[in-house]
């Protein structure tokens, strides 16, 4: 069987990625660990002194934390959506990106909810959510949805890893410590790549791929409802859930493109991640930027045109105090990607990645503008309040925890890449096997 040889070849090809920790990589991990340590220190301070050391106050009760929460959960949801859809395609090019998407999905659903925990005043009472649950509360829905999503994504990621674990287990020549070999053996759960096993795994994976799409949509919709079910002007909008769904996809595709660029460059995977991937990803990003722009425009346009009392105050602050942020989030963050991605000449790998960076940064800022200015403009005008309670400015505690969250995401990503090849070997094998079968059919 030449497929077994092919497996060996692939392992050999990817072995440098798995075996060696280059000095640059060690430095990178070191930097991430430092950032995370600073974040942990900030967290200790927050637990010790309370939320008083954050910028959150009685009017803006949620700040950077909830913005990061929406942002990360959005990326995860989008990853689940895309990897679920990719599963239906039977093209060779998908193998180069599926694993990146799946890892992003799982990691962001791990990092995201940590931010909502930082928002909670009494972490020591977190278990009250389970001993005194109230199913009427959207927060309870959110907890159920996110835990389900997290478990679902984990199972899905693991399922797609099993054949690769098996391949790695069957290659004892890898220069890796013994515990890793044992771990591969354990994680491969005796998968021998027989026909029956393959069929069964394929069946489970395809069921899961459909389920995680549904779970992700539910989770993100419920998250949007945390805002839109309140009476606050600016939040109480029927467009919020669909807008969050589109916005999540938009940022998710952006993050995937950025990850592809960095991985391609660092691991020299030009053979696997080709321009076509960027062009296709760019096309998806273009469609999403148009959709997202349309949703955002409809929302703000309706508010502006009907000028209800509460909305007027909100728009006024968006066009004065938050003018540049508003322009960046809702004009530059949408129009620049549209321009770059719709002109064929501009569709180079670098420019597409640039468009993705703009899209992701713009979207983060868009989430900021959804949360903070709205809370600064409630129904009853903010009066008779300590002046320092009126506006929100994030403190270094919140920023360092934000960066620690991003660093955790990157660190876990780096470690997973060192543990399992970023290009799905089993995907390549499956593809080649099918080509072989097709050839056999033709010759018969």
């Amino acid at each position, binding site marked *: 069987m030449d497929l077994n040889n092919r497996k060996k070849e692939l392992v050999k090809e990817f072995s440098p990625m798995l075996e060696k920790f280059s000095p640059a990589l060690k430095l990178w991990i070191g930097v991430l660990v430092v950032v995370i340590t600073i974040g942990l220190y900030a967290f200790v301070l927050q637990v010790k002194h309370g939320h008083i050391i954050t910028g959150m106050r009685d009017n803006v009760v949620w700040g950077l934390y909830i913005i990061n929460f929406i942002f990360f959960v959005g990326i995860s949801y989008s990853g689940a959506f895309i990897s679920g859809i990719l599963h239906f395609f039977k093209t060779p090019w998908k193998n180069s990106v599926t694993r990146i998407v799946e890892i992003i999905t799982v990691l962001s659903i791990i990092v995201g909810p940590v931010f909502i925990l930082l928002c909670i005043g009494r972490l020591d009472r977190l278990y009250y959510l389970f001993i005194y649950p109230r199913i009427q*509360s959207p*927060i309870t829905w959110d907890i159920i949805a996110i835990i389900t999503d997290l478990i679902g994504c984990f199972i899905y990621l693991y399922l797609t890893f099993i054949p690769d674990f098996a391949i790695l287990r069957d290659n004892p020549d890898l220069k890796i410590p013994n515990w890793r070999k044992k771990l591969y053996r354990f994680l491969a759960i005796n998968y021998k790549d027989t026909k029956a096993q393959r069929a069964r795994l394929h069946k489970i994976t395809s069921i899961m791929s459909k389920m995680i799409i549904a779970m992700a949509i539910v989770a993100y919709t419920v998250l949007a409802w945390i805002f839109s079910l*309140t009476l606050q002007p600016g939040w109480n909008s029927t467009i919020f859930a669909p807008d969050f769904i589109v916005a999540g996809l938009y940022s998710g595709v952006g993050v995937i493109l950025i990850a592809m660029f960095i991985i391609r460059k660092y691991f020299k995977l030009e053979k696997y991640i080709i321009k076509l991937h960027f062009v296709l990803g760019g096309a998806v990003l273009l469609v999403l930027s148009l959709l997202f722009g349309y949703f955002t425009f409809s929302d703000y346009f309706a508010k502006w045109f009907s000028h209800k009392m509460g909305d007027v105050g909100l728009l006024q602050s968006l066009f004065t105090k938050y003018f540049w942020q508003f322009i960046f989030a809702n004009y530059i963050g949408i129009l620049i990607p549209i321009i770059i991605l719709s002109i064929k000449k501009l569709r180079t790998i670098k420019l597409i990645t640039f468009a993705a960076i703009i899209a992701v940064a713009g979207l983060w800022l868009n989430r900021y503008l959804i949360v903070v200015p709205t809370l600064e403009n409630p*129904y009853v005008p903010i009066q008779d309040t300590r002046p320092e309670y009126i506006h929100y400015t994030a403190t270094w505690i919140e920023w360092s925890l934000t960066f620690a969250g991003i660093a955790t995401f990157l660190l876990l990503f780096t470690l997973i890449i060192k543990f399992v090849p970023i290009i799905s070997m089993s995907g390549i094998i499956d593809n080649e096997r099918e080509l072989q079968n097709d050839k056999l059919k033709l010759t018969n």
Partner: protein
Amino acid sequence: MENYKSKKSGTDRRKFLKLGLMSSVTIVAGSSLISNLSTIGDDTKTSGEKVRLLTPDGKMVEVATENINKYPEALITPAESRKGIPDRKFVMVIDLAKCKNARKCVEGCQKGHNLEYHEEFMKIQLLQNTENEEPYWFPKPCFHCDEPPCVTVCPTGATFKRDDGIVLIDNERCIGCKFCMTSCPYSAREFNWGSEPEFNDKTQPYSPETQVPRAEGTVMKCDFCPDLLRQGKLPYCAQSCPMGVIYFGDKNEDIVTNGDETVRFSQLINDRGGYRYLEYLGTKPNVYYLPPVNRQFPLERGLNHDKEILERYRNVPYIDELLNKKN
């Protein structure tokens, strides 16, 4: 989950409280009777003795002394505080024509709830209906809505609506997610952001009815002072207002009082054009306002405060104009 430990004594006490409230609202003598009895109840716990009491409608009743507990000092536990005072439906009416931002209600409330000078359950807004009308002072407590959005969204049931209409917070149950704060359209809720020394004051056992002692990382708000209501007293804000702006009472009895005059609630609302703030939101508040017509004080009178208080109005659009007018 209901408090099974104090169930027996609780129901008896409640019966008694009902008597106490009735008597104290109508007969002043009632309150002195209660305070005398509370000391008797202390040392005769299981004696089986009975005591004769006069009810408001002139009947004599016999009550077992062990059923008369240390009221009014009696602690209403978090579980008991969920039930509310029987047969009551509390309501507040604020007469905007009489308010001159004297801030006595704010101060009284702060004192009663052990709040710092810059923390407040009651805020005095400076509102303006249309640009042609003069602004007016608008005391804003918690509205204790009949459709409270804060209660709906609470994930642990830490905030709850009682039978007597009061919305309370149990800060021993609160996890500090702040969702109630974002869902309250009236911004009535406050958060304990940091830790203060008096949070650790264990001399007084915690009760959601007093909200003392407070706890770090939990939500608090105006509570209509149920501990005072049980004693037949008015809430701190209504007690301390020198102008009699704040009427408080019972919708079931159709009576509200500001301490000086006692009036029919329905009549007051109908005759004076009473309304509820942001009625269209559908939260059905239990705080009514009487419009600021025939005002008794010039508006600028409300600005006779030190700099620190004026700072609290810095972002009000017409404040500079008013300050100029005053000087």
